[in-house]
């Protein structure tokens, strides 16, 4: 489970020795978060976001369990109970703002975490299962966030629930039956609210379980790193503690500072005003939008406006939106290049940034009303989204000529110190490593 040069846990205290032969939790911590876990020495700050996502989940569970003590999942009083939390419950406003803002932060952190994985090729062998488990977590998060948003039972909650559950009615033949079954009625009502509360409470704990599998799968090969090349020896690693515990704590401090700024000074920045109006099934808000973290997918959903191939536009939209996410499950087999990090893949790297811009365009379109030019723009961006994964990436990974890889992580690190600043790819323009000063010093004993 770890490299052969990992330090071994030696219990020193009497209690430590007692526990080690009965329930060796200290050993588990030492081997997975402590000095017994050698980690690539070159991890940058993008590698903080896994830990940050874990912290974000803990914040959500903690504040959520407390909010659950004051919330009432009944359509008659749900909205009022949220206002009761905001106005009457001691520190209720803070807990609710932490929970609502926390969801946004959780998604922001996870999106950066996924982007990091995409850029450095962390989904490639031997980490495919790790990647797939991460996507399962992402799906669970989306379901949880959607249902949590409905609990407020404001206008946007209600109409968001209407639009999203209506997606299932697009399924041919059995769609309407599934729709009614999911809602427990013919439109979102008390039965819907109750089951959403129950599941919203359950799913974070399921997520927690999958995260444990995710971390387990991570600790088998160990972390990838910005060079994407494998650890070759002890000189390529540092013990997780104190090196990455301190780095993670610093990142956590920055994260919590930003989080506090939004919670205390801009708590409604990311929310929709319409959700402060109680749900009214007889009146639709003029502009139904989901929370920002669903915008890219919402744009893909709405991009289909005409029926073709005997499939109605609505079903196309639903299929496209779900495939946009499911496609990521196939990524390890669509991108077949043996080089992991985009630092050494000039074409793939350009594609990555274009893809990122494409996602941003989809995100902007998803937040706008469904009219021109946003509709046309989201159609083009949706086509590119699928082309990126299904055409461009497989082709590039077959024909691209990668830049020469450094011989080891250590070599790459020491070269970077000689050429201060700038990413490694700029310093490795196929010039042959031997010509670069400092390489002799950097050669590891292999």
């Amino acid at each position, binding site marked *: 489970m770890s490299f052969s040069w990992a330090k071994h846990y030696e219990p020193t205290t009497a209690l430590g020795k007692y526990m080690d032969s009965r329930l060796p939790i200290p050993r588990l911590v030492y081997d997975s978060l402590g000095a017994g876990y050698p980690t690539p020495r070159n991890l940058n700050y993008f590698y903080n976001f896994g830990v940050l996502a874990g912290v974000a989940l803990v914040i959500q569970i903690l504040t959520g369990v407390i909010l659950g003590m004051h919330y009432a999942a009944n359509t008659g009083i749900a909205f009022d109970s949220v206002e009761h939390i905001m106005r009457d419950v001691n520190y209720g406003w803070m807990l609710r703002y932490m929970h609502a803002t926390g969801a946004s932060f959780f998604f922001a952190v996870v999106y950066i975490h996924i982007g990091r994985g995409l850029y450095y090729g962390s989904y490639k062998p031997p980490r495919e299962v790790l990647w797939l488990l991460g996507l399962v977590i992402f799906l669970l998060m989306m379901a949880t966030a959607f249902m949590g948003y409905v609990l407020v039972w404001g206008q946007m909650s209600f*109409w968001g629930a209407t639009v999203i559950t209506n997606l299932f009615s697009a399924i041919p033949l059995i769609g309407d039956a599934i729709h*009614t079954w999911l809602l*427990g*009625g013919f439109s979102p*009502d008390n039965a819907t609210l109750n089951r959403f509360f129950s599941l919203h409470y359950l799913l974070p704990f399921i997520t927690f379980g999958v995260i444990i599998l995710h971390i387990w799968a991570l600790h088998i090969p160990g972390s990838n790193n910005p060079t994407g090349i494998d650890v070759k020896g002890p000189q390529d690693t540092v013990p997780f503690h104190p090196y990455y515990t301190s780095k993670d704590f610093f990142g956590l401090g920055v994260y919590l500072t930003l989080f506090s700024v939004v919670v205390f000074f801009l708590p409604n920045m990311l929310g929709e005003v319409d959700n402060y109006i109680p749900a009214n*099934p007889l009146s639709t808000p003029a502009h*139904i939008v989901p929370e920002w973290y669903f915008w890219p997918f919402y744009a893909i959903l709405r991009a289909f406006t005409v029926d073709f191939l005997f499939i109605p536009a609505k079903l196309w939209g639903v299929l496209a939106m779900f495939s946009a996410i499911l496609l990521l499950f196939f990524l390890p087999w669509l991108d077949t290049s043996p080089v992991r990090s985009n630092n050494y893949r000039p074409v793939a790297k350009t594609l990555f940034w274009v893809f990122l811009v494409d996602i941003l365009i989809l995100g902007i379109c998803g937040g706008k*009303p*469904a009219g021109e030019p946003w509709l046309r723009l989201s159609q083009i961006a949706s086509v590119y989204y699928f082309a990126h994964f299904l055409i461009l990436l497989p082709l590039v990974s077959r024909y691209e000529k990668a830049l020469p890889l450094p011989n080891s992580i250590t070599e790459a690190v020491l070269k970077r110190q000689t050429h201060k600043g700038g990413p490694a790819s700029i310093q490795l323009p196929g010039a042959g490593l031997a010509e670069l000063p400092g390489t002799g010093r950097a050669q590891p004993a292999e």
Partner: protein
Amino acid sequence: MATQIDPSTDMTPAGERRRDFIYIATGAFAAAGAAAVVWPLVDQMAPSADVLALASIDLDLSAIQPGQAIKVSWRGKPVFARNLTPAEIEAANKVDVKSLRDPQSLADRTKPGHANWLVTLGVCTHLGCVPLGAGEGENRGDFGGYFCPCHGSAYDTAARVRKGPAPKNLEVPQYAFKSPTQITIG
């Protein structure tokens, strides 16, 4: 059993064991039992008896004047009941049905002998918004029926889609006249 069983492996020459039957029977019994338990767990999510009890409503139309419409809630969704004026009926009948996106005549969408009563769901067939036009003074769109403010779908006086992104006409729910001024929806 006439077949020869090898005592060392407990198998017939065909590779079957006497225990196979016990295994299969146990597995089948457990699977049937599990399915019997799972069904209630699945079916509890379907609409409950009280929700279904409210699945049909009675509606008194006598107070609705020609040209007026009312909005009622049925199964949590709005229903528009509209008393069409002779001019509106004529306008709806003048349209060439074949030219419509969702070809239906006014007669297809009303009950025989009650051509002036247009009863539809107040749910836009595009993304489920509630169209305007049932309330007094609301925008009825370019075709005098209903107008959805979300994405600009316009419906005519037979609540048929004439403009905008909606794929279908406003849905006509199942309903029946109990008396000339009383209907049961659902």
